[in-house]
């Protein structure tokens, strides 16, 4: 008995399996336990299956977090991040951990260790990567592929480009190789066996896979036995048994995993290959559970997520006092390398009592093999078109007799039925309700269709939130979408074209195309012709349409100020208290005594409370009352200053360093070029803000390589960069190209800006536009096609001839005066009640 009102549950390990067990426990019995978690990694629970997309750059860490900090707080969980459990005392029923990294505390802990008592204990220590016992394995630059720290280390190594050798041609090794290649490294995969992924694929599919991997520029060497890793102080090469030497700046060992059971062993729990558990997931001590990759159940250890989640369900049920049992079932595997589709399930080794049906189309890269025993499917391998994977897998798990459709079986579900081929939506619709759709989370079709109907779900995100289907590795996303489509019919509009807003079904690109095709020249005409669903749009579409029309018809379209966001209507930045900030232009970041004096005078005259230097080398006056804006502008105009457009979806600043004027390292007149660019480009409206910088040498003091457009001067001319970001996201620029003269630089930048103006979607920054249309495509248009560059540049110049009117001077002279003053002042005698 415990004097505690609630039982104390301690969890060692914060991976996906214990995370899932807690989730299930809280769903059913939120008040049953006080929970403490020890995580040796200094972070929250994340989706380890998705490390490959993080490595390849397709996802960020935040996107793969399963439980954010808030989840732990909401469930009253004490989470020790960066705390490694060193001892389980089964007599005292306590767990002791030492802090290995600065975790959530943000500072070094006061005590080096912590000891916590438990009533029930879960061990989820996962597994350790196998390190080949070869000389040189400890050299810096030799990594494994297991957690986020490994991925971060690889990303850092990949920055220098160079060569990488991945040892191991299994699932993890190939995903690591593809990710490193994506990061620009020269990659070689070494595999001991004759074909890749031999545990999941037969030799034929292994060859097809090898061809596809090689087609991405990754070298594959099979039957490769590593003899040593060489290097002086850090890794330099890998040597094979046959004497071959491969240059390597990075070596990744992905040869397998081994259950991490040391802690259990030290506590005298029964272990074999893993920590031994019974079907209730209890270890030899009934108050201690083990689950995940560290556990051995029914003579097997597991590495795929589906059985681990099944274990989690059993542990949660047992903790609630329900009797559930773990029975391992067949699992299916998919490779998460974009563009390579393969699916395998079950057992496909050849044997005397087995038959096989094979379909091959080498030219189209299609391969299917189904292994039968007693007319029942025991294994399936699909390469290329894997849409039928779940159907074969379902037949396999049911052990259904397929003799009645044997001759058509290999063609898949649509043909096996004997009729005309089904379209993909109908094929999914034809699956039985208990067919598994999401292997990772064990979600069957009936649960998904039930949730769509019962909860009125309309989008993929909603289905993920409510059922977890496709929320882990994401490879069944297509199937879930087909289910949505089958159930909702035409009302399901997959993400293909995202409508601009609720006022239309048209996407941004459609609208821009139709503006040109139908010569639409006002917002009212556009809404009429394109059948807008609302009388006059909304706050989302109106500013976008105003920009698109302005960009398409320069000099012709009359700006609709009522469709501008307040900042662009009143030419200042609204602040949280309804006052405004004012930022005058300082060309290339240069100013003068006269300008500074005028600013000082304005600040005093209008009692402006805050004056601040901005990140874009200008001065910001904050807290100006709206009524005072025209007066402030008049004073600034008198000193020759114009609007800095710090409020605009348009050209903002051009940051510069002092270049050859002063700097002993400067290679070109960077300040001069910055000023010329700013004078050339100011006043232009763009889909989102555009910030520039010009650095006088590669030391890059103006930080040009994280700007929308940046120039880095070198001895031989100018490197033009673009598509950087240093806000919500941080991203270095891409190189657009090198030019020899200032004039060429200005032409390329003008053309680039115009291309962005014409293709960018409203509010889409340059780096997002570049990601969408492709950096190479943009480079070809601007740098390799002189004719096209010239045409774009000319269009920009034409547009600028109407754009460069200082809005402050106009308003100081009286334009829109009514905007800045109240229409009436009421003094109410009856207000004195």
């Amino acid at each position, binding site marked *: 008995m415990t004097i505690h009102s609630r039982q104390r549950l301690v969890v060692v390990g914060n991976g996906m399996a214990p995370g899932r067990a807690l989730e299930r426990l809280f769903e059913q019995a939120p008040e049953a336990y006080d929970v403490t978690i020890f995580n040796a990694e200094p972070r929250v629970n994340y989706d380890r299956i998705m490390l490959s997309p993080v490595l390849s750059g397709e996802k960020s860490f935040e996107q793969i977090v399963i439980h954010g900090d808030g989840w732990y707080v909401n469930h009253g969980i004490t989470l020790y991040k960066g705390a490694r459990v060193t001892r389980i005392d089964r007599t005292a029923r306590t767990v002791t951990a030492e802090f290995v990294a600065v975790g959530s505390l943000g500072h070094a802990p006061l005590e080096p260790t912590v000891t916590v008592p438990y009533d029930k204990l879960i061990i989820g220590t996962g597994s350790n990567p196998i390190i080949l016992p070869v000389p040189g394995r400890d050299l810096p630059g030799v990594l494994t592929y297991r957690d986020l720290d490994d991925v971060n280390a690889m990303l850092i190594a990949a920055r220098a480009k160079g060569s990488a050798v991945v040892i191991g041609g299994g699932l993890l090794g190939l995903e690591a190789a593809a990710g490193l290649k994506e990061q620009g490294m020269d990659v070689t995969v070494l595999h001991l066996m004759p074909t890749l992924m031999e545990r999941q694929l037969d030799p034929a599919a292994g060859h097809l896979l090898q061809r596809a991997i090689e087609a991405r520029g990754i070298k594959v060497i099979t039957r490769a036995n590593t003899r040593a890793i060489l290097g002086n102080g850090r890794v330099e090469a890998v040597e094979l048994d046959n004497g071959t030497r491969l240059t390597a700046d990075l070596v990744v060992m992905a040869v397998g995993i081994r259950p991490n059971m040391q802690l259990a062993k030290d506590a005298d729990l029964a272990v074999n290959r893993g920590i031994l558990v019974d079907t209730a997931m209890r270890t030899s001590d009934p108050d201690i559970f083990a689950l995940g990759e560290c556990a051995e159940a029914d003579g097997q250890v597991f590495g795929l997520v589906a059985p681990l989640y099944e274990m989690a369900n059993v542990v949660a049920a047992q903790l609630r006092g329900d009797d559930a049992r773990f029975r391992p079932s067949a699992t299916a595997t998919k490779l998460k390398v974009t563009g390579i589709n393969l699916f395998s399930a079950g057992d496909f080794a050849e044997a005397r009592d087995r038959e096989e049906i094979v379909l091959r189309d080498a030219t189209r890269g299609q391969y299917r093999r189904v292994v039968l025993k007693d007319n029942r499917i025991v294994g399936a391998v699909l390469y290329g078109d894997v849409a039928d994977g779940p159907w074969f897998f379902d037949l396999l798990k049911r052990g259904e007799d397929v003799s009645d459709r044997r001759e058509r079986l290999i063609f898949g579900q649509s043909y096996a039925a004997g009729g005309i081929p089904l379209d993909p939506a109908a094929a999914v619709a034809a699956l039985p309700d208990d067919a598994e759709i999401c292997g990772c989370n064990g979600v069957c079709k009936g649960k998904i269709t039930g949730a769509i109907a019962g909860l009125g779900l309309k989008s993929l995100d909603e289905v993920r939130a409510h059922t977890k289907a496709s929320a882990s590795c994401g490879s069944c996303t297509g199937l879930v979408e087909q289910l949505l489509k089958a159930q909702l019919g035409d009302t399901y509009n997959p993400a293909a074209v995202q409508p601009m807003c609720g006022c239309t079904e048209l996407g941004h690109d459609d609208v821009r195309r139709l503006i040109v095709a139908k010569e639409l020249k006002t917002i009212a005409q556009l809404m009429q012709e394109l059948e807008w669903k609302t009388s006059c749009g909304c706050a989302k579409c109106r500013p976008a349409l105003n920009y698109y029309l302005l960009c398409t018809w320069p000099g012709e379209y009359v700006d609709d100020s009522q469709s501008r966001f307040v900042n662009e209507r009143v030419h200042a930045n609204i602040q*949280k208290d309804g006052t405004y900030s004012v930022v005058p232009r300082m060309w290339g970041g240069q100013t003068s005594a006269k300008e500074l004096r005028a600013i000082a005078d304005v600040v005093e005259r209008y009692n402006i409370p805050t004056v601040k230097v901005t990140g874009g080398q200008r001065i910001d006056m904050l807290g100006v009352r709206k009524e005072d804006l025209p007066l402030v502008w008049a004073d600034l105009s008198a000193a020759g200053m114009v609007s800095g457009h710090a409020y605009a979806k348009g050209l903002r600043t051009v940051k510069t360093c002092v270049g050859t004027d002063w700097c002993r390292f400067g290679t070109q007149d960077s300040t001069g070029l910055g000023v010329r660019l700013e004078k050339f480009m100011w006043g232009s409206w763009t889909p989102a803000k555009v910030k520039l910088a010009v650095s006088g040498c590669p030391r890059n003091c103006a930080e040009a390589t994280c700007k929308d457009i940046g120039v880095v001067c070198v001895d031989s001319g100018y490197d033009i960069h673009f598509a950087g970001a240093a806000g919500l996201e941080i991203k270095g620029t891409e190189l657009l190209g090198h030019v020899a003269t200032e004039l060429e630089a200005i032409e390329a930048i003008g053309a680039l800006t115009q291309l962005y103006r014409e293709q960018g979607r409203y509010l889409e920054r340059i780096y997002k536009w570049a990601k969408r249309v492709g950096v190479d495509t943009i480079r070809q248009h601007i740098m390799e096609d002189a004719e096209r560059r010239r045409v774009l540049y000319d269009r920009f110049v034409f547009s600028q001839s109407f754009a460069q009117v200082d809005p402050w001077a106009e308003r100081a002279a009286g334009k829109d005066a009514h905007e800045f003053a109240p*229409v009436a002042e009421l003094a109410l005698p009856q207000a004195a*009640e």
Partner: protein
Amino acid sequence: MPWVEVCALADIPNRGCRVVRTPRGRIALFRTASDEVFALDDRCPHKGGPLSEGIVHGRHVTCPLHNWVIGLADGEAAGADKGCVRRYPVRLEGGRVLLSVGSIGSDKGKQ
């Protein structure tokens, strides 16, 4: 209730807003695309943002600070947001905008 003429309809831009300053605070006069006029407190129920500076669409205005959408006819926040803005009686007479000021001085107009 005394009605006070505050401005001409033409003083308020179509799909726009102008402000009347009163001892009780600012009142925003909205004019829709179809020339209806509405009067609301110039304070978003969310964080006090100036509704008068928002984009007017249909019978709604979107607050410039955090994009809450407020109904001009009922003063209620639309969608999932909860909040209500005080309304004032307003009418049009031959192109002139009349505001019922009694409701400003007393609390009778309070919703």
